[in-house]
């Protein structure tokens, strides 16, 4: 059987919440490395071939100015490459610094042996700040997150920038109803997305198709061919009348959607050409529905989080859910004031679950399992049925100055009933 109370700290198993802390800088340095690799490869091929070309033309025609010009452009290209690399190098150093700070932070935990050590308290406070910043970032409260990180001095332990970038894309989908940023993101991460066989890009392209068809129908309806519309999609020309839009939509589908192999979906997509947005015929109506943008935003978030090894829900929720249950007792939502932890007497502290902050949150979580009673030493019962540790009762009555030979109940206080002290009985809790 597990010990009732244990104060030993097992750092190794205590790190369950901290995997993203180390994963994020790792994923970021990989991304950074790939960018560096791409720019070097790209410029190398371009520059070697342009040097070959220059050499060739220099040996054929002796136009020194042309040679010098092309050399100059090569030099400036090289300098551009160097600038880019230096930028990436700076980023790389920043990531490494933060990775090191995070490792040091986790190492601190290994140095603490006991859960009741003050050092553990301190460490746990830092962790809570981290979890709070993580939560704020996920919910899109980036200003608050940056502010908190800065005031706690934990900027190296949290990933404000990465989340700000992520939320920019998410908002462009959810609120802006625009696929541009998201498609750009897909292009940047195309390799990993392919590896994870993600549906994100397909869904985005499908949305573009839906929007084209919608515009086609709408333009056809109003009969205003050539009406200018703006949708900000990349790779798709804007303008044209109803019929041209539908033609464009078909071309778009052929280019981006037909390779998916999902014929059922393709059939439904083709059906859109016949059913207009206001026809309200399923399954086409749900494709036209604006709720699809919310779906896309959610899909983007989950794709992003999987790619960067981030858990699907905020870590704060995970920690709190477990904590609320571990601390909750049947007394926390009881109709009767508990004798052992309440706000009405200074002989006890308020239980965190009973405190205003968490009480309603904890209402739906299960309470902790106990196999043994936990009561104060030497419990006694008052005539009103309340049980107290006899020492606490004595100290309380001394403090409020109850007359000798009498006892008051700490909950009802000095205005409540009092009893002769021989009415207080011993009680046996096994």
């Amino acid at each position: 059987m597990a010990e009732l109370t244990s104060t030993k700290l097992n750092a190794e198993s205590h790190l369950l919440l901290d995997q993203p802390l180390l994963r994020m800088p790792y994923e970021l340095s990989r991304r950074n490395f790939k960018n560096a690799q791409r720019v070097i490869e790209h410029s190398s091929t371009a520059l070697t071939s342009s040097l070959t070309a220059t050499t060739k033309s220099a040996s054929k025609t002796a136009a020194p100015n042309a040679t010098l010009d092309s050399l100059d452009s090569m030099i400036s290209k090289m300098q551009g490459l160097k600038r880019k690399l230096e930028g990436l190098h700076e980023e790389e150093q920043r990531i490494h610094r933060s990775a090191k700070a995070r490792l040091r932070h986790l190492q601190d935990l290994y140095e603490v042996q006991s859960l009741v050590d003050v050092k553990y308290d301190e460490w746990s406070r830092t962790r809570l700040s981290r979890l709070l910043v993580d939560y704020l970032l996920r919910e899109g409260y980036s200003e608050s997150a940056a502010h908190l990180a800065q005031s706690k001095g934990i900027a190296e332990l949290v990933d404000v920038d990465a989340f700000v970038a992520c939320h920019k894309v998410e908002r462009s989908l959810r609120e802006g109803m625009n696929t541009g940023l998201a498609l750009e993101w897909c292009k940047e991460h195309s390799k990993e997305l392919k590896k994870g066989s993600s549906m994100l890009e397909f869904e985005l392209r499908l949305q573009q198709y839906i929007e084209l068809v919608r515009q086609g129908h709408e333009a056809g309806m109003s009969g205003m061919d050539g009406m200018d519309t703006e949708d900000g999609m990349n790779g798709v020309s804007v303008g044209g009348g109803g019929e041209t839009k539908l033609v464009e939509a078909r071309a778009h589908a052929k280019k981006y959607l037909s390779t998916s192999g999902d014929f059922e979906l393709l059939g439904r997509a083709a059906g859109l050409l016949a059913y207009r947005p206001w026809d309200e015929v399923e399954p086409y109506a749900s494709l036209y529905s604006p709720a699809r943008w919310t779906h896309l935003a959610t899909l983007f978030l989950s794709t992003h989080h999987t790619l960067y090894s981030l858990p699907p829900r905020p870590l704060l929720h995970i920690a709190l859910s477990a904590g609320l249950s571990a601390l909750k007792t049947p007394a926390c939502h009881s109709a009767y004031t508990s004798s052992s932890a309440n706000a009405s007497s200074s002989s006890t502290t308020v239980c965190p679950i009973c405190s205003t902050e968490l009480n309603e949150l904890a209402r739906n979580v299960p309470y902790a399992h106990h196999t043994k009673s936990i009561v104060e030493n030497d419990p006694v019962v008052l005539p009103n049925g309340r049980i107290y540790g006899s020492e606490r009762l004595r100290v309380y009555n001394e403090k409020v100055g109850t007359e000798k030979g009498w006892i008051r109940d700490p909950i009802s206080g000095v205005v409540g009933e009092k009893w002769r002290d021989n009415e207080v009985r011993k009680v046996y809790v096994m």
Partner: protein
Amino acid sequence: MDDLREQVELFESSANLATSISQVQKAIDLLTAARAKIAADAKTAPLTLAKLQDPFKKTLDAAQKDLKPIYAGLNKYGKALDRKFKDKPLPSAENDALSSHPSLINRAIAMHLLREGQFGVASTFVEEANRHPPHPEPTLNTPNPYLRESWEKDLAEGTFNSEKLQQQFAQMYHILHQLRIERNLKPAIQWARERSDILEARGSNLEFELCRLQFVCLFVGHGQPDDIMNEEENASGPLHAWKYARRIFGDFQNRYARDIQQLMGAMAYWENVEDSPYQRYFYNDSAWEEVAQSFNREFCSLLGLSADSPLFIAATAGAIALPYLLKLQTIMKEKRTEWTTQHELPVEIPLPSQYHFHSIFVCPVSKEQTTDTNPPMMMPCGHVIAQESLDKLSKGARFKCPYCPTESHPRDARKVVL
């Protein structure tokens, strides 16, 4: 842990883009040198360029090759991370019971920030959260959070008045600062005096402790004189303290007669209190911290809040509990069993005793915790069992206590509150 650190140090010292950048610089130098030569003498162009080809290509290749250590390092680092977290999966959405109540969480966070004294962050947050209200997401216990949104929002907004709470906590921090840093008792004493009746009913002796500390300060001679004492400005040290005592301690006579007697007794030793039996009252460095803590606790309790941040305690308890819950999940998955008690966790979580707040009563007969519907009952012999156990044992007639020879009737058993 060490392998990870070594790897990061390797990244910092050598496996980074610095070498590639220097190769690129070398290539630039080659190009500039060639350009200078051609500009000086145009005829050398074909030859110079032909000579340039090879070294230029080589430096660029080297720049690419210098990326290899980074690549290898990243791979190694990734593998070390995998090893580190092999048996520590990312917590899944199943462990999350709170996504359906985002406005309650936001309120808890705002209150946490305020009570930590992070007023700036708190106001940024409250403003930002009002601008972008959160989206609830379904959880196991609340599959459709949108249905209940309205009451929850009312609750979150109705009881949460951030400005008022901020004012209160600002006052608390002001008083604590005065106590801890400035060693000034006046604001605290004033606060306590305004709430004298409530504090007294709670059995708190905060006011007296503050006054006693003030007395001690005056006695040893580094206390600020009270406003009203201005007329007696010349009074110093023990005399000053004595005057203070005569004026203030009268109200405390009944409750703290003994403590006051002790303080008065110390007056006899006013010349050498350091060597007297009363020394511990007067030279006690922790007294200030104790008073500050007890003030903090009383202040929060009067607001119905716990003294330490509940968010902190719950998150810490959660981190301690997670390994047990995760193990439980694995076992349940393996055995394909369901968790049968929806209201109670199926596993005991050993928390340090400072995380126990309420008394717990587990019925020794049924091994279940008592609740409002199944309360603890005390039999005339003083033993306690749960109501349901009592009903089962007695079947409404006289029965023997399971723990002693006494017999009693169930109607003689009384409900008790722990």
